[in-house]
């Protein structure tokens, strides 16, 4: 274990990851519908400012501006031929900021979903998904990313494809899913499913967990769900700063820095070792989270009631784990 993330995890109880990419870039003038990844080349100073914002707010890990940097996503903008370049430069800018930080900061090469549905339900084959993720991984590696950071995945098949791509690129990796539908991913995967999936992979991630989704309460319920499976692998919690609202022509998230500070402490007390934000999480939130993590003593693992009392109600009664959830109807064919 010589990678920077494993080294940091070995010396620290918790690490703070970064916040939002899109929300921050909008504030710098990115227009809706434009691919943020092009800014790695066209507006590198904005990307440097994005990364620096996280580092200066106390993040130990930040994600590169390469979330949509796979061929399937970039194709929308006719940039599918620039996968390697955009990822390499996105990571290289990160390397530059991390190396100037004066402490160990991990550059995590963000790998988002392809946006396509995998076979047999959809058209994307496993081989093609691996190829796309691998192409992106090689670019991130060439730019100096410490780890690959697969995020916002909803299909277990896509998670597996990304794992295989990390192996092909010879990169350590982390992987989170977005549990946004009644506690499950859009494709129906539960926290228990992901906890079981990672242990079955030939190259399991350094850490796994949840990002995005709906609100911080749900995200922590998911984190508790991982531990209910007895996982001993480091768990990642990267929740949104509240819920998006539209105000004065722009998206604002309603989560306050105080709420995100409470969330960060509850995430740590729940057992998460890597704690960050996602959409809507700005430097001001990260600063509050860092301060809370450093100053508030570690408490016992919170109950679901304690989580909802502090962070707000859950979006659904059940998260699909256990037997309490609603059951499918009985059918005559006895399936």
């Amino acid at each position, binding site marked *: 274990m010589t990678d920077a993330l494993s080294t940091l995890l070995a010396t620290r109880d918790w690490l703070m990851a970064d916040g939002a990419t*899109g*929300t921050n*870039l*909008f504030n710098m003038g*990115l227009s*809706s*519908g*434009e*691919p*943020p990844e092009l800014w790695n080349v066209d507006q590198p100073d904005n990307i440097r400012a994005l990364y620096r914002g996280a580092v200066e707010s106390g993040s130990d890990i930040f994600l590169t501006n390469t979330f949509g940097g796979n061929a*399937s*996503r970039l194709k*929308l*903008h006719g940039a599918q031929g620039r996968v390697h370049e955009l990822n390499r430069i996105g990571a290289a800018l990160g390397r530059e900021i991390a190396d100037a930080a004066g402490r160990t900061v991990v550059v995590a090469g963000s790998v988002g979903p392809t*946006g*396509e*549905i995998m076979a047999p*339900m*959809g058209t994307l084959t496993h081989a093609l998904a691996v190829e796309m993720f691998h192409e992106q991984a090689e670019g991130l590696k060439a730019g100096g990313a410490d780890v690959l950071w697969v995020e916002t995945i*909803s299909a277990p098949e896509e998670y597996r494809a990304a794992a295989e791509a990390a192996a092909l690129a010879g990169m350590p990796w982390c992987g989170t899913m977005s549990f*946004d*539908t*009644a*506690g*499950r991913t*859009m*494709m*129906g995967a539960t926290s228990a499913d992901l906890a079981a999936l990672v242990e079955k992979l030939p190259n399991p991630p350094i850490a796994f967990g949840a990002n995005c989704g709906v609100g911080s309460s749900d995200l922590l319920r998911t984190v508790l769900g991982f531990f209910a499976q007895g996982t001993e692998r480091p768990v990642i919690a990267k929740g949104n700063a509240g*819920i*998006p*609202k*539209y*105000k004065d*022509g*722009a*998206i604002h998230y309603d989560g306050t820095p105080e709420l995100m500070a409470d969330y960060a402490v509850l995430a740590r007390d729940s057992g998460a070792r890597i704690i960050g934000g996602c*959409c*809507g999480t700005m430097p001001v939130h990260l600063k509050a989270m860092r301060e809370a993590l450093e100053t508030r003593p570690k408490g016992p693992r919170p109950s679901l009631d304690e989580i909802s009392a502090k962070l707000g109600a859950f979006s*659904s009664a*059940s998260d*699909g784990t256990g037997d309490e*959830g*609603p*059951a*499918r*109807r009985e*059918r*005559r*064919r*006895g*399936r």
Partner: protein
Amino acid sequence: MADEDDIILSELSDDELVLQMHDDLYDGLKDEIEEGVNILIERGWTPYDVLTKALVAGMTIVGADFRDGILFVPEVLLAANAMKGGMFILKPLLVETGAPRMGKMVIGTVKGDIHDIGKNLVGMMMEGAGFEVLDLGINNSVEKYLEAIEAEQPDILGMSALLTTTMPYMKVVIDTLKEKGMREEIIVLVGGAPLNEEFGKAIGADAYCRDAAVAVETAKSFVARKHNQLSA
């Protein structure tokens, strides 16, 4: 499974067959749905009755369980695929028999957004509810939406976004409709994971639809209201 083979659709009574088709939609069994549609037509059912009583009613169950977090996207995609198989048989017959039309919808994912899973679900569920759907696909500019609206004269425009980076583009489209004086003629429904009701209102949509089942219900009620206004 052994007992699966025991069900012979053609031996079921009409009532039993319809219930079985609801089950088979739930399980996404395309061949069985196609067979069921053919049997009902052969038994003299009108295409419209087959559509509403067997397929739409079955998809309503699927939609409700999807809404309630019992079924998820993979199951709904399979169900919709089975439905599509049935629709393929029914479509020409519906046209021939002059079955009532629910309305027409133009739907597409906004510029910059590749995610079309939710949009596809809405499209399929709307077709399942008897609407005519023109799917513009992903990555639609305001020009593409306007062009389709002018050409197709739909009752409903559906826009979808899955990313916080693309959802504000919906407002661009709605504002342009207003500028061109086209906003009043059309029902605008929006959806997508990062959206909420407040967002829908703020950008000037008629409604935000949480999922495909809600989209169908909302579309039905708005179209009914529109028709009432016209006849009033």
